[in-house]
């Protein structure tokens, strides 16, 4: 079973036999399941956080996704890689949430951070006490531009863009995850990129 870690360990000490771990977890081995989670959970949380820009929602997605994996691991038949299967679950949960936000039109410029609510437009990278005020202003405006651009994407465009640009996944794999073709994912990325370029036009 799980135990809250004192520190965050991303890698594994021993080489990972993923298929073996999956089969062991399918047979009820909790330690194997834990190792699988630890292998991927940082990526899962990063994707959810970046897609939703809300730590609270990202925590919910993390839990929902791994509980789904836990409940449905026996239905995993090695037809695709485990990480494609897992990321498919994660992106679907995130897409649902993004779509619900669009329906409710709740997208605001504010985002939750560990330090509380911060306006995306004014969100700025921490640069220390001696940072150049002009540079700070520039960073603030750039962050606002990126946030506004992302907020202007459709949930699907945002997902494809996030997975391709920030996660570095291939379009073929992204297509698999969101249930579309590589070509459709490519078109989606193109539209997203154009919109993002437009929102950052003054910086380029």
């Amino acid at each position, binding site marked *: 079973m*799980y135990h809250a870690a004192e520190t*965050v360990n991303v890698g594994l000490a021993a080489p990972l036999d993923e298929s073996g771990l999956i089969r062991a977890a399918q047979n009820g081995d909790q330690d194997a399941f834990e190792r699988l989670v630890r292998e991927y959970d940082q990526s899962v*949380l990063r994707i959810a956080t970046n897609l939703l820009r809300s*730590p609270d929602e*990202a925590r919910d997605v993390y839990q929902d996704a791994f509980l789904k994996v836990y409940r449905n691991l026996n239905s995993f038949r090695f037809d695709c890689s485990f990480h494609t299967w897992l990321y498919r679950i994660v992106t679907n949960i995130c897409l649902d949430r993004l779509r619900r936000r669009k329906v409710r039109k709740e997208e605001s410029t504010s985002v939750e951070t*560990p330090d509380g609510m911060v306006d995306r437009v004014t969100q700025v*990278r921490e640069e220390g006490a001696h940072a150049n005020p002009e540079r700070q202003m520039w960073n603030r405006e750039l962050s606002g531009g990126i946030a506004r651009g992302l907020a202007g994407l459709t949930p699907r465009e945002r997902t494809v863009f996030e997975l391709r640009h*920030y996660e570095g996944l291939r379009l073929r794999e992204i297509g698999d995850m969101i249930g579309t073709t590589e070509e459709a994912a490519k078109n989606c990325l193109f539209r997203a990129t154009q919109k993002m370029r437009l929102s950052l036009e003054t*910086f380029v």
Partner: protein
Amino acid sequence: MNCLEAGKEIPNYCYGEVSSELEELVESHLADCPACRTELARHRKFLELLDEREPMLDSSMLVQCRSQLNTAIRQQASVEASHSAGWRGWHRVLETLRDFSRVQIPFKVPVGAMALVALGFVGARYTPEKFGGVRAATMEPLFSSVRSVEPNAGGQVQIAVDETRRHIVSGSIQDPQIQELLVSGVTDGSNAGVRLKSIQFLHDQVLPAGVGSADVDQVRAALLGALRNDPSAAVRLKALDGLKQFASDATVRTALAGVLQKDEDSTVRMQAIEMLATHHDDSLVGVLQNVVQKEDSPLVRAQITQLLAQLKASVGTY
């Protein structure tokens, strides 16, 4: 390739998402076109700017998530364990019927069907039309949900469907199988209402009517488990009600002392004190003196002080 075509491919080219043939065409165009080279440089700058985005993830979030997942999985495992315990009783019924079938009914009749008939569980079932099922009169709804849709190697589609069938079980409160199901209901982690009603039946009907001594132990253990571990204060209170007739039992009194020290609900603590007060027990004095010093609720403090007075003990430990 002209400038328009090259412009459309530059974003994919930068991500390395063009075929080798297309890559060659783009590069060949770029070599001859200063305007498109400028556009390429601007696009690369744009991509660099995107990386200025503030990361939101910190390591404490991950630790927190792992801890919450751990708790959720424990609960899930506990629900699964209680469900499987609940069905053990029925498994025995089915085993009995299997023996019965060897005598009365031709061997190849499915045992499950015989069990349903013999127990009066009408076998009609409802399958939603979307799964190609047929609507039928039903006493047992079948709840289905699609869990995954995958292509399979043969070019067909493979759909995983979870099905949950509800059986309506009715019987005398004296029926050991019914009693066993009620005990299982006490530990049903997924539904506080079920836990509450199970305890109520055990308390109001099963225990007063009298059960075998082994079953009493089982009921008491289930109630103690609910008292110690149930997240719902209402269920814990109901468990205390059920335990009233065992108030003189040493195990129960130890559990009551534990409630005084650990339960976060003051009503539950007060109820526990009432039960402890029904039997004179000097060994409680130390616990009560300790608890009264830490107790936040004035009502609970007053109740403990009163109990200490009954036991002719002081409030302080001195």
